[in-house]
């Protein structure tokens, strides 16, 4: 079953800020049994699904999702996704709780959390901590890597 993006946005509080957040949300939820049916590959922001990106674009075209462009204080653009249709899809309590925990983190922390999971369980990198710092550099600083690992622990997805 392909997951409904509007229902995910609704479950996430009505809006999802940024493509990275949306992608990593679905990736992490898939590891908890969401079964989105989307395939993920590693790109420069971590695990990414072009099928999910295509599904979101289609939701925008058929007005099931609105994508509004905003700009950061330095002018860098990003999207805010809101649901225009309100499915009554109820997610299992485990998924709903995970969405809540994920939404408390920044998108950069989600990128790190999804990348840790990918490195440890897909690429099977023994020293995934070192590899994370090597790939993500400054993004891992200021407690962000620790926060990502803490999120994975809360979701019971953390590698040992």
């Amino acid at each position, binding site marked *: 079953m392909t997951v409904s993006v509007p229902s995910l946005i609704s479950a996430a509080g009505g809006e999802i800020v940024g493509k990275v957040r949306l992608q990593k949300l679905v990736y992490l939820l898939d590891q908890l049994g969401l079964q989105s049916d989307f395939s993920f590959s590693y790109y420069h922001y971590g695990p990414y699904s072009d099928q999910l990106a295509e599904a979101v674009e289609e939701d925008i075209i058929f007005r099931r999702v609105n994508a509004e462009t905003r700009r950061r204080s330095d002018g860098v653009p990003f999207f805010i996704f809101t649901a225009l249709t309100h499915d009554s899809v109820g997610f299992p309590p485990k998924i709903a709780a995970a969405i809540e925990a994920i939404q408390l983190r920044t998108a*950069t922390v989600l990128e790190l959390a999804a990348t840790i999971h990918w490195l440890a369980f897909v690429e099977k990198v023994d020293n995934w901590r070192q590899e994370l710092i090597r790939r993500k550099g400054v993004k891992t600083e200021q407690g962000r890597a620790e926060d990502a690992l803490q999120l994975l622990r809360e979701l019971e997805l953390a590698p040992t």
Partner: protein
Amino acid sequence: MIVFEDDLDQAVWKLLNTPEIQRLRRIKQLGVSEFIFPSATHTRFAHSIGVFHNARQLVRLFRREFDRGNIDGAYDPHRAKISVLAALLHDVGHGPFSHAFEEARKSIAGARSGGSGKINIRKHESFSAEIIKNRESEIPSILSEVNVSTEEVAELIEKDIPSDMYHAVVSSSFDADRLDYLQRDRYMTGVGAGAIDLPWLLDNVRVAQIDFADPGDDGSPAYNYSFCLSHKAREAGEDFLLARYRLFTNVYFHKATRGFEQLVAAFFRNVAVGAEAGQPIAGLDADDSLHRFFQNDGESLKNYLALDDAVVWNSIHAVARSGAGTAQAIARMLLARKRLYCLDIQNCFPDDPEMQRRLKHALDNQFKGTLNGTVFRDTAKLSIYGEIGGDDSRAQKRLMVQLANGRLKEITGFSNSVIAQSNTERLFERYYFVSESDYKSAKETVEKIEQH
């Protein structure tokens, strides 16, 4: 003319003469683009020398910026040396037929993933890093002659985001790679669009702390030094991005080129299916390099380095001559430059995304049994920052303009920007057909959708 002078240049000269870099002479920079632009026969080897040349120029900019007091601290000649060497070696891990080879490997990995939802392939940057660190090659000893470790060079090629300003030479909005291919690909294809004012751009490149955090995380920045552009060159910067955009629309995404890439990818897939099953491929020797690479556990460095365009063409010739079935038909089409029939979704319903989606679904349904066999679907997305292959444009590739007050602003964020519209995604979706009857059937579907 590129002159090799000091110790670093002499090391570069030695590196150019290693078998690993000489292999790039046999890999064309633009793959099958020469089928459409006959003079675009330039190689990854020539490109790599150009990137090295640009990198030397860019590290001189750092000296200039330090001398002017625009950057805190002191110039680091060791880091500068690493970035120049990484620039030279950045493409050493490129496979044959570049884009088609990686796309084919991705689809092969997807088929082999057993529905896990995770497709894990090694990208060419990872092969580049392994080649640089390979103790069986001469590369490590040449690097050590100039007191540089293989790890230091490989790290710059593999990282997702820059580690410091010297890394910007290899990966940034003004990296040495981009400065070469924008000029080289335009010149060699002969396309008129896409001129850039390089001297003015280089004179106005600055170094500043740029926020690499996700833009939705306002208030939680992740700063690092990278290139930006003085406000005096904002227009030249717009032209620079537009030049790249035009190369994508006119050259890299040319519908005939993408069709030939689909054919090459289909040839790879056909070989891979047989190799994975442990079966001989009709027309290919048992020790054919391509066959060996696609076998289970065949993705070793040795097998990868054995591949180049010439080797693949040899396999194509062999299958065309003595092969069978679909693989032979594809090989013969490639040798005869026989184009696939192409249906362009965006051209069928210009500026009507709803109708484009309906057509796409109808075609997917109509050809679901033959997709990736005799019918191929090609999808690419483009923004002003180039092809979108991932969540977003890479943070370091964004072009930031330094205003007169020293603050930074992303170049499409100006209210009077002439390229702001191009920051939205433009889709390129094409269906390619081996048989004319399938193509005609698809055209009938277009008419039916139009009538409803």
